């Protein structure tokens, strides 16, 4: 099992540490919902019911436990290592994902609009997402979870430079 080098280089800049907190809270919320579901199953489905129920009675809590450990204890830190971004003279470049990684590159000359969005949780952590949109439905670069002031500066800078060097943009 040789691990080949990555196909393309990693973007230079990492996200702020507070992104880990945000991801942990997000995972915690989904974990609570999962445990509520599993608990409801154990409470309301009688063990005497036939079929797969006896198996499910221990399988569901096990899965919920695995999910808890992975989503809260491991994934936020892995994501923080994977999620990276960079704005160069010519392009916006990001890496996202954790098991499956995705690198996205958009040249500044093809940028159509730049959005800054702040979700409820993001606001609590003082973070924001910069979305760089192009004429292609698939060519969207999202820089997740930047500090709000940084996100605003990046968006303004990208929009201004896109205006200067815009070619056909399609």
């Amino acid at each position, binding site marked *: *099992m040789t*691990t*080949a*080098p*990555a*196909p*393309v*280089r990693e973007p230079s800049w990492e996200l702020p540490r507070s992104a880990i907190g945000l991801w942990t809270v997000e995972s915690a919320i989904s974990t609570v919902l999962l445990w509520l579901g599993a608990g409801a199953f154990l409470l309301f489905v009688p063990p005497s019911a036939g079929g797969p129920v006896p198996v499910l009675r221990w399988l569901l809590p096990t899965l919920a436990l695995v999910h808890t450990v992975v989503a809260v204890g491991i994934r936020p830190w892995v994501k923080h290592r994977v999620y990276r971004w*960079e704005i*160069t003279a*010519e*392009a916006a*470049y990001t890496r996202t994902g954790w*098991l*499956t*990684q*995705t*690198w*996205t*590159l*958009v*040249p500044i*000359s*093809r940028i159509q609009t730049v959005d800054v969005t702040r979700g409820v949780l993001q606001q609590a952590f003082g973070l924001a997402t910069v979305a760089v949109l*192009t*004429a*292609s*439905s*698939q*060519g969207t*670069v999202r820089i997740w979870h930047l500090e709000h002031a940084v996100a605003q500066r990046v968006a303004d800078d990208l929009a201004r430079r896109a205006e200067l060097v815009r070619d*056909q*943009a*399609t």
Partner: protein
Amino acid sequence: MTAGPLPEARRTSRRIVLVHTVTFKQARQLVPVLIPVVAGIGFGGGVTTVVLLAVAITLVSVAAAALSWWRFSYADGPSAVVITRGLLSRSVRTVPNDRIRGVEVEAPPVHRVFGLVRVRIDAAAGAAGEDEEVVVDGVPRAEGDRLRVAVLTHRGATAPDAEDGEAPAEEELSRWDNRWLLYAPLVGSYLALPAAAVGALSRLVDEIPGDPLEDLFALELPAGWALALGVAAAALLLLVAGSVIGAAVVNWGFRLVRRGGSLVAVRGLVTRRHTELEIDRIRGVSVSEGLGMRLVGAGRASALVTGLADAERRGQLLPLGPREEAWSLADRLVDDPGPLVAHPPAARRRRIVRAVALGLLVTVGGVVLGVAQGHWELLAAGPVVTALGVLLARSLYASLGHAVGPRSFSVRRGWLVREQTVLERRAVIGWEVRQSWFQRRDGLATVTACVGAGSGGYAAVDMSAAEVPAFTTAASGPWADTMRPAG
């Protein structure tokens, strides 16, 4: 709203009121209201009620058609097309000329009887999901052509300068050959046509009181194999004939010509469609061959045009024909990037592993079912699934490929419909490189070229990870070097 003097507002032809009355265009929206009304009154009154109802519906239809004609006007100025409509709440829509990406003139059968056409102006809308089309329904043929030429000329593109479509620089790129209809039974979308017709018919049969189907089955029929064979043969015949007829209706008299800076496609037996594409906006061509089409060497070609609404239909360069014809068209519009490079053997192994895994799953399921319940059929299916899966995997792998030329590049994928897309370098407005955990282990990656045309992205699936930086730079521009690993 517009700069400069407001152009003269024009109206559609009065005859459109008749067309819409006959086709119940506006009145159709009332159908959901009418059904409960009819159900309430019932047909108890016999003939008088039916006649009254017919008269009422016709009157409503006339009134609705007349109102919408009365409240509709359009104006094509030097900078924009302005459409005014709406009964109570007036809406004025201004489409700047430089946002117009194509004009289509179509003549449905009823319109033809009255000498009218429908002009569709395709405008690039800001947001997705917004209605991107402006329709001027019901102008005389000559006015339709004038409008098309006027809009395209104002846009500043090299639109035809002659008045009536008889531009001097006209070059025919492709012309329909009726023998191509024979390909139709092997194309999925045309095969679906008779099936849809049968579906509609069966719904109609459901509406008829009593049960005609049951009556049909109650008939004394020769039993057994003869009947089954007869039904199968009839169904097959219906399917073949239906698909050929369907293809003929849609594509009859297809002709693709280059006129100045535009490509003009004309087709259709009942509704003549006249679609115009600007060559400057074409970013690539995709040639697709379905499973059945590959057996007989057929193909279809469509242009990938930036910002074209309903691109599937409008971008068609060759709806159905020999694959050589499709490729010769593609080569005239976009440079040939050369022969495809096969993807690494690891890509084939990935597909075979998936197929074998599925086969194993079925086999294990078969063993469990056999031991638990004594049914061994599923176990027998296991090896069959595996064998078919491996064949499919090899064929899937064979269709993968990519190529880079000096001015263009190409990617190919797909088994059920194998699609090869040739794109210009300037078409690329971004790259997406994706690598799953398994792909990382195998040294593969999927590279998607983001394009503001067609489906938005075209992927080279499972190419060698080491080749990715060279491919992206060669296929787009030096800006893609941003991704090249150092050293």
